[in-house]
């Protein structure tokens, strides 16, 4: 049993059985591995965002192909994201390390720390387990020993509540042989957002242009906070024009946005993905008191805003980050 699996087993053995806890049994060692986040407290009024570091198990340097995920998080989760660790700026760790951050402060909240870390998978669905088999013949490639970071965010304040505290787990189910096609990911974020009290339907749209050819989007989800009214995604051609008459993804639910997992959207050659967020704020709301009570870019749900897109596609050319 690998070191990771030992840690996982110990964590599972020690966890409580709270009714609102979202538990996920790990796969058999022969079928895959689990990234496990043990229970932690989220006190009333707090936002907790922790970053957990894991190594992909296996013979160091060997390929590890995954074609199926299960993602679980307690009720109240704001998000659970997994990234591949690349450039370490002010956030890093060895396998088994945890970086704790709270209320918008700390390196696990500072997004520039993982600006070039490719997204692996994500969920925003609290209180349930997402069963996500990849399309037939598609797998995501890892290298045994590769460092991954699981970031999990819980809010126990006015916009969201976490009655059972924080907890999450992700199962990676491995393949016996390499698949026909490799999965790639796109993480896109819109910067310098500012939504002020009284604003109605303030929109932000950005295009992520990628040098893909013959690429198919098979899953996507959007992420914003409680000022968000609508999140949409479309695909654009080489000149930047939307090519679908209606968005391929629409969310009007900020706290439990849908994860579209059965898409078959072609990205035009030379084109890319467009994503648009629309925001409104009540005239009596207050984000940053020192900035006219406006809500600006950042990870703190209560007082800041995001407009992030998670897109999963094949065949992979690269994992892209767009700004």
């Amino acid at each position: 049993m690998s070191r990771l699996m030992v840690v996982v087993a110990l964590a599972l053995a020690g966890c409580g059985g709270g009714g609102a806890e979202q538990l996920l049994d790990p796969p058999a060692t022969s079928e895959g591995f689990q990234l496990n986040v043990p229970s932690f407290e989220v006190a009333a009024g707090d936002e907790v965002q922790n970053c957990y570091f894991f190594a992909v198990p296996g013979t160091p340097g060997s390929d590890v192909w995954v074609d199926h995920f299960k993602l679980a998080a307690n009720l109240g989760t704001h998000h659970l994201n997994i990234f591949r660790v690349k450039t370490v700026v002010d956030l890093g760790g060895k396998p088994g390390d945890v970086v704790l951050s709270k209320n918008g402060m700390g390196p696990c909240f500072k997004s520039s720390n993982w600006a070039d870390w490719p997204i692996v998978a994500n969920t925003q669905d609290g209180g349930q387990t997402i069963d996500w088999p990849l399309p037939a013949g598609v797998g995501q490639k890892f290298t045994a020993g590769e460092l991954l970071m699981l970031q999990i965010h819980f809010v126990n304040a006015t916009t969201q509540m976490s009655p059972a505290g924080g907890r999450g787990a992700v199962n990676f189910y491995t393949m016996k042989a390499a698949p026909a096609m490799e999965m790639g990911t796109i993480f896109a974020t819109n910067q310098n957002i500012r939504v002020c009290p009284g604003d109605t339907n303030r929109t932000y749209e950005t295009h992520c242009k990628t040098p893909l050819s013959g690429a198919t989007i098979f899953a996507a989800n959007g992420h914003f906070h409680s000022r968000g009214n609508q999140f949409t995604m479309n695909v654009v051609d080489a000149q930047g024009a939307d090519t679908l008459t209606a968005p391929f993804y629409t969310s009007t639910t900020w706290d439990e946005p849908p994860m579209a997992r059965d898409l078959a959207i072609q990205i035009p050659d030379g084109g890319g993905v467009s994503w648009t967020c629309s925001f409104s704020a009540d005239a009596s709301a207050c984000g940053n008191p020192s900035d006219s009570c406006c809500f600006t870019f950042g990870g703190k749900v209560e007082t800041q805003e995001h407009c992030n897109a998670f897109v999963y596609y094949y065949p992979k050319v690269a994992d892209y980050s767009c700004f």
Partner: protein
Amino acid sequence: MRLLPPLLLIGVIGCGPPPTMMSSCDDTFTGDAAQPPEAMIVVTDGVSPTLVDVVAGAEVPLMRPPQGGQVTYAAVRVRNMNRCGVSIRGRFRDPMNNAELGFDGRTIDLVVGSDGWLRPDALQLSEFTNVALCPNYSTTRDNQGLTTNLELTATDKKGHTVTVTQPVVPTCASADATERALCVCECNKLPASMVRSCAADADMSM
């Protein structure tokens, strides 16, 4: 998550004032209603709260915003338009084939300048399109140091609209040499290997 139990929801629906959602912007018209809208592209470097008019051939700064990448902060100063909830759409295009290289669009509120033109608040980078050119994922074209068309369109809520395009040279402009080197690395085309490690090249790693 489910924020409120059903009984509490019923209570909320049944009492209390309705949410207030009034815009604080007074949507006045500025200029001559008999004339079509006029526009000049303006940029800022995100450091000094100044606007610079963009003329043909000008260098426009590429700067690093909080999350990452390299963007040009571009907007327009306009007249003969209304000022609130103006849609601005900024786009870089390759002059060789008109391909879009970067796009950002947003709604902003303009302010009236002493010259009688509407303009963005130079203190707020959210009032500019943040048009990203980098990281550049092309293997064929550098996105800094080459002439590129910068296209801005402004449309107010009354339907007045204007588009202006200028050939410009996006230029990594940080005063910090390390940041500038990172920008050049991120904005140049990918090597044939498709693998690039800009932070290490720019000695940004820790």
